[in-house]
């Protein structure tokens, strides 16, 4: 499938400039639902409503406030926010290079393909340099009045630009307060053997979105007036902590 470019710019680092085009890499496909009023199936829409009068307020009568304390606001208008918006630029500025795979996936937001804009030796050189060194760049850029921090990586014959989340948006795993667990060598060994036995290769094509199909069937059935039987969600019984080793060993026998 040919993917249209959505933005043009250039990668800059050191004394190099590499002209690139940005392409979408993911197109989500989902069954689209609408929210309806239960009794007459009128399609509802979202509306900003005054909390006191319960009446809709048209967008031209809406202003933006920052709540300093209960019921007290600092008003900020669009112009003031506009002045804060960064200047658009065409540069994807690389600040440093890090080992590929080092970035915790919780930071990854979205990947884009980055193709060559004009035929330039720089694109191929950069692509191959990154692949050979096993590195990816950390870069910042501004696109449509928004500043981004992201990654510049290489895979196959294509450069990729990924957007990253800011660290204040990410919950660090360390904050989860997970307990330290003592495990016996026997438990660990059984666990490792089991995981090794259940190991394979990731083949994304093997995983179809079956749910989507079932959902379409459900809708078709309901449209033709068929009755739908409700199935209760199945729950699995949790393995008791003192049965862990036993269960791991039983699993191993089952696999073999």
């Amino acid at each position, binding site marked *: *499938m040919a993917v249209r470019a959505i933005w043009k710019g250039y990668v800059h680092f050191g004394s*190099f400039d590499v002209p690139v085009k940005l392409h*979408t890499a993911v197109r989500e496909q989902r069954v689209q639902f609408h929210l309806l009023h239960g009794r007459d199936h009128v399609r509802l829409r979202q509306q900003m409503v005054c909390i*006191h009068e319960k009446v809709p307020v048209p967008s031209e009568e809406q202003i933006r406030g920052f709540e300093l304390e209960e019921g007290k606001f600092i008003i900020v208008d669009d112009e003031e926010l506009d002045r804060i918006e960064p200047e658009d630029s065409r540069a994807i500025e690389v600040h440093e290079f890090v080992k590929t795979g080092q970035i915790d996936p919780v930071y990854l937001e979205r990947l884009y393909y980055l193709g060559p804009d004009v035929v330039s030796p720089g694109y191929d050189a950069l692509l191959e340099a990154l692949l050979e060194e096993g590195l990816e760049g950390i870069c910042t850029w501004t696109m449509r009045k928004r500043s981004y921090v992201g990654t510049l990586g290489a895979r196959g014959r294509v450069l990729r630009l990924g957007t990253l989340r800011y660290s204040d948006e990410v919950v660090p795993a360390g904050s989860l307060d997970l307990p330290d667990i003592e495990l016996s060598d026997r*438990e660990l060994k059984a666990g490792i053997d089991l995981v090794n036995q259940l190991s394979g*290769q990731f083949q994304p094509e093997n995983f179809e979105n079956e749910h989507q199909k079932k959902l379409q069937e459900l809708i078709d059935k309901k449209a033709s007036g068929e009755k739908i039987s409700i199935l209760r969600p199945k729950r699995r019984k949790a393995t008791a902590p003192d049965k862990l080793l036993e269960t791991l060993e039983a699993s191993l026998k089952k696999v073999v």
Partner: protein
Amino acid sequence: MALQSIWTGTISFSLVAIPVQLVKAVLPGRVSFRMLHAKDYSPLSREMFCPDEEKIVPSDEIVRGFEIGPEKYIVVTDEELESLSPERSRSIEIVDFIDSDDVDPVYYDRPYYLVPSKSGEKAYGLLVEVMRRTNKAGIAKFVFGEREYLVLVRVTSGALCLVTLHYSDEILSDTGVATEKEGAVSEEKDRMVKTIRDMKAAFKPEKYTNERKRKIVSLLGKKAKKQAPVEAPVIGEETPEGPGDLVAVLQESMRKLKATK
């Protein structure tokens, strides 16, 4: 940090089932504004609105519909959605363990964490330690809300991180983007490699701060010093019922209280 769980169930591999909760790994870091009514600074809230009756519809009167024709909908309930894959709505079953870096990051969608529920700590700890030592990650499918997700379960700093994945038919091919053949001029490449090596560092996410947020906060700080904040009107949602004289006396006393504030 107390994180609210958005789902509870089990994560399982073979016969082992671990009770877990799903929590968000991403929180809004943005400065959040409240929309107000320009005329009196009354706060606004986002509501579902019925255009025919011109009124707010409470959540218990809202249903989910799929459009099969102009203004013709098929209503689908939560129970019916759960019925589609009853074995997957309360259980994340790992079907395969794969090498951790086997998944092309282009498949990554949204990250979450799994945390152990009561009496699941030990099996959870075991799965984490085993996956860490073998450098494996799990592939599973599970149903959450309106969708069935293909997910990757991997280990991050001693925790199970669940990343929802895109299905392969959602990934666009990069063939039109790729360069035709290997064509790097070696001199150019060598010069680049030299610069790249000079710029090598370890990734420190805190180094890149949200500039926009910083600017907004500083703008707010300046404005708060210069001008007094506006005040939302204080109007009760309903007039209190109750003995008339008592309400009147209490209201009078509230009025006095506000005047001295």
